[in-house]
């Protein structure tokens, strides 16, 4: 363990799964700060299970997960989670503005309908960053898939977090949304923060990320993405066999 390398995420001895099934067994993983990290692997490899275990949506069976050496519950306001689009009920009566606003203040400590004034500013800021300001008053169901994904990311941005955990943020998007989100990844990195995303498409991983974790029931590789084509190809074959 190198002392001056600060790890945004340290996993040791992690065994996790759901419904009495074990998906990942005894894995270890350290991800440094300020990277654009992709988690890549075939279907069923455990990418989403890992992500969800990080934010405690699945109870881990064993092991440790630390963020800057702290437990998730102690630092959760500094971590923003963007779930998979398909898991949400988009018919819920709510506007784009209101969804993003959820990220802009600490809901767990707010009572009645009181929302701190700064939340409004942060919301508009996030909406602008994702080019969604014109859709503020629209019903979320009226948006395209790409726009919906941007709403979720805007919500995460409004939190002003230090770590962004995203589950398949680039899946099934139109070109515009892809570009906007990719730019956001760069902005996040430039402001010294970190993004870790489950990425579905190994072919495009070099375009958006600079760090990669290859998973298939085990961690096959965890490191920077400055590999040669051949090295990458070999690793991918190993992961996807």
């Amino acid at each position, binding site marked *: 363990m190198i002392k001056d390398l600060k790890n945004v995420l340290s996993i040791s001895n992690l065994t996790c799964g759901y419904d009495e099934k074990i998906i990942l067994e005894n894995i270890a993983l350290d991800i440094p700060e300020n990277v654009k990290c992709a988690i890549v692997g075939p279907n069923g490899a455990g990418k989403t299970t890992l992500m969800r275990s990080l934010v405690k949506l699945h109870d881990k069976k064993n092991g440790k997960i630390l963020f800057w050496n702290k437990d998730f519950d102690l630092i959760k306001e500094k971590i923003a989670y963007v779930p998979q689009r398909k898991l949400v*009920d*988009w018919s819920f009566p709510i506007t784009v503005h209101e969804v993003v606003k959820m990220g802009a203040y600490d809901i767990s400590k707010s009572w009645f309908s009181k929302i701190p004034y700064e939340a409004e500013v942060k919301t508009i800021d996030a909406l602008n960053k994702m080019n969604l300001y014109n859709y503020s008053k629209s019903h979320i*169901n009226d948006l395209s898939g790409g726009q919906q994904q941007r709403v979720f990311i805007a919500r995460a941005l409004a939190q002003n977090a230090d770590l962004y955990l995203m589950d398949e943020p680039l899946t099934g998007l139109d070109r515009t949304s892809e570009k906007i989100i990719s730019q956001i990844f760069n902005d996040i990195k430039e402001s010294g923060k970190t993004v870790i995303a489950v990425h579905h498409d190994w072919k495009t991983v070099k375009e958006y990320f600079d760090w990669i974790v290859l998973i298939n029931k085990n961690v096959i590789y965890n490191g920077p993405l400055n590999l040669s084509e051949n090295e990458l190809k070999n690793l991918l074959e190993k992961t996807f066999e």
Partner: protein
Amino acid sequence: MLIYYFLFNLIAISIFLGIILGFVSSYAVVRKWSLLGDIISHAALPGIVYIFLLFKNQNIFVMLLGGALSSLLSTIFSFYIQRYKSIPKDSAFALILSLFFSFGIIGMTIIQKKGIVGQSIINNFIYGNIVSFASGNVYFYIFFSLIISLLFYISFQIQKCIAFDKVFSTVRYKNINFWEFLLLFVSIISIIIGLQAVGILLMGALIIAPGSAARLISNSYFKMTLYSILITVFSFLIGIFISLKYSNIPTGPVIALTPIIIFLIIKFFRKIKFKNL
């Protein structure tokens, strides 16, 4: 002699009803139709009641037909809402169930108030009364059950395909939609026939429980269907036996409770089994 004939009727009907409802339960569980069973049973009420009211007809067969039609209507409605309207799934089902059932209750109250004789027949449908059911035309029911069982039997592979891989099936079997509709229709008929024994209020349980219990102890659809049939037939026989022995206990609740208890017992033993691992 008459009593043996009557007993024979009861047992024969129980077995045949048990078989077709066993098929239905297994199919319903893999198709994830738990609530649909409830809707089909409850939605039968207006059909039964209004046929009776409008045509003053006490013929059971006609009432059954009415029930089947209104159930079918409610099912089509449900599927339509589920597919095209983006509201939470069970609220669509709840609305349909409420619409049909309350409409039925209104009709039933009209019958009560007008003092028309026949309230008891309708009550039989709501609470179940296998004894009066069994004194009807037994061969008619056995005949229907045989046809329905045959249909379920020959469509076995198709059921598997529809339940587990619809997309693949649509490519492989050209007339999958026809079969899907046929199986739904046959399930409705079976449920309606069974209503006379178990009653509208408890039928939902009989559609979910045997299949759910069977699923816990089988790895293949074939075994699951087999167990479902065995459990359902067993439930009917227990219901009859207890009803005959203790005349104040109605068959409906016993028939409905048996597969649930079997389900709970299986779950309990599985938990013990897993805890010891």
